[in-house]
């Protein structure tokens, strides 16, 4: 049954929607439109003259080897963060699902990282991984591993991946837990009676039944890793050393705010926007149609 609310006046629904529409317009559509406009412009070094350059910003961007570098970094970073946070989120959800009585407390503990501001989270990771003062950093150096993420690009990437994934694990776990709890216990019991051992039950029943959740989370995590990790990177490595942890979003910021190249920065923002729109479209497509049973 479908329930429809019928408003007596035509105007009322629009009035009710107006605040939300206004906020969306002011804080999203307006800046987005500006970014698109700026991406066709170029300013001279002193910011005095602005000229229309068409698609030049884009062609220059796509030909820039450092942009390719950022693209590669983003791919590595986003894949690793998503895999790690999804894997750990699923693991914790399965553990919590087993002892659901303690899950209230467990959930609260695990949701904390999600609520912690990026800067605070980064400080926490500095405490752990700083080569001289960090707990783990000192230990790594102690056993002779030559740990210094401020100098070693690979190590820097590892640290930002860990920090970014850590913040997302709780979110994933909550969704996986909800997914697990929606699987009727009798289905798993039927599988047990059919002869499946716990591990087989997980891979043949639980995991496939979680696929809508998993797919949704893959998209969310990719979007998070690509666009929402600016704070973590900025606080931990500032994109360094030698741009080793500079992802697309971080580079857009550096070009815009630090290098004051608004045209290039806007062109990058537009590219990112297109990617977000594509990811979101994929998500709606699949969540609505493909991934169900």
């Amino acid at each position, binding site marked *: 049954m479908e329930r429809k609310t019928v408003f007596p006046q035509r105007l009322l629904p629009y009035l009710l929607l107006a605040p939300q529409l206004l906020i969306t317009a002011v804080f999203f559509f307006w800046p987005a439109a500006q970014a698109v406009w700026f991406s066709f412009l170029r300013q001279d070094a002193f910011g005095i003259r602005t000229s229309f350059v068409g698609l030049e910003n884009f062609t220059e961007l796509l030909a820039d080897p450092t942009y390719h570098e950022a693209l590669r970094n983003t791919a590595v970073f986003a894949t690793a963060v998503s895999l790690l946070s999804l894997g750990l989120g699923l693991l914790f959800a399965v553990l919590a699902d087993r002892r659901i009585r303690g899950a209230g407390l467990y959930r609260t503990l695990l949701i904390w990282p999600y609520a912690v501001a990026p800067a605070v989270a980064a400080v926490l990771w500095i405490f752990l991984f700083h080569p001289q003062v960090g707990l783990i950093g000192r230990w790594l150096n102690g056993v002779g591993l030559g740990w210094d993420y401020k100098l070693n690009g690979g190590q820097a990437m590892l640290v930002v991946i860990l920090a970014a994934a850590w913040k997302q694990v709780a979110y994933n776990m909550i969704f996986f837990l909800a997914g697990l709890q929606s699987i*009727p216990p*009798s*289905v798993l*019991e*039927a*599988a*047990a*009676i*059919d*002869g*499946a*051992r716990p591990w*087989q039950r997980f891979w*043949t*029943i639980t995991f*496939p*039944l979680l*696929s809508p959740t998993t797919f949704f989370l893959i998209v969310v995590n990719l979007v998070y890793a690509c666009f929402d990790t600016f704070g973590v990177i900025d606080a931990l490595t500032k994109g360094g050393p030698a741009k080793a942890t500079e992802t697309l979003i971080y580079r857009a910021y550096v070009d815009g705010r630090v290098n004051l190249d608004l045209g290039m920065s806007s062109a990058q923002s537009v590219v990112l926007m297109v990617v977000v729109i594509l990811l979101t479209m994929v998500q709606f497509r699949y969540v609505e149609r493909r991934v169900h*049973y």
Partner: protein
Amino acid sequence: MATLSLAGIEKSFGATRVLHGVDLDVAEGEMIVIVGASGCGKSTLLRIVAGLESPSAGRVRIDQRDVTALEPAERDIAMVFQNYALYPHMSVRENMAYGLKIRGFARAEIERRVAEAAALLELAPLLDRRPRQLSGGQRQRVAMGRAIVREPKLFLFDEPLSNLDAKLRVQMRAELRRLQRRLGVTSLFVTHDQVEAMTLGDRLLVMHQGHAAQLATPMDIFERPADTYVASFIGSPAMNFLAGRLTAGGAAVALAAGPVLRFADGPRPGAEGMPLTLGIRPEHLVPAAEGLALALDLVEPLGSESVLHGRLANGEALAVRLPGRPPAVDRLTLALPPATLQVFVAETGRRLDPSPA
């Protein structure tokens, strides 16, 4: 085919005791129906047999082998759940094949068995559908098919028909009985529908608050219920109970409602004046010139018969079942044929049989 034996099965969830020592011996190929009110522990008992719960005390043996400590997978049983518990992400074919695949059967053998079960249950045209594309009755058949293909030692059914509409239920009931006979698999069938209980079981186990109240053939239970609980549970409308006292040296009962009735089958042991509960089924009461006067307060015409409810002069409730149309009266005088009386001790509710001659 196998035998099943339960010895002193107890189960507690925390402080709540749900089963208080249930014993049951099931012969090869036998179908035992477990009935009882909601919450009396039927499902718990079945789940203990399946290995989904472990008993707090007692042993489960299948074919004399103690399986109490074994996992469900190691017991070689199949279970049909009330909600069917089909695997939602698998086709009907995959649902039925799953247990065989997990157990490492050869592909050809799996296909043969699935095809056989599908033919038996008329599922062949549905093999490639997903469970959510099936009707309730079809899902029920798939659940049956999933149990059959395994060719298990034991079938367990937990109210498998309770989600079906009345007509389908009757049809599936008959099909299920035929199937079980044909396959000859030892079965436990849980229900709280007494028609199912009466028609399906070779023997009936009536459970009451975690105890086995009575284990006997359906007709035995109907005709000679072990206590007032069983008596009231089996038969519809339920048996009437009237208070009385033992009198005439055990040869008769003096009803609280007035009349003194002699037992047809001999005197009962017990002290003079011992409180009794007298049971009589609604269909055994007959209108007569003399007897108990009943003031009717509700008439239920059921087509081929009518059920009349009323009260006796002393306030006790009584139901009568009469063939045909209900008589257009508001009072009835009823006789209680002595041969149909059931006698119970009021204090314990236990059946009181005549003292052996």
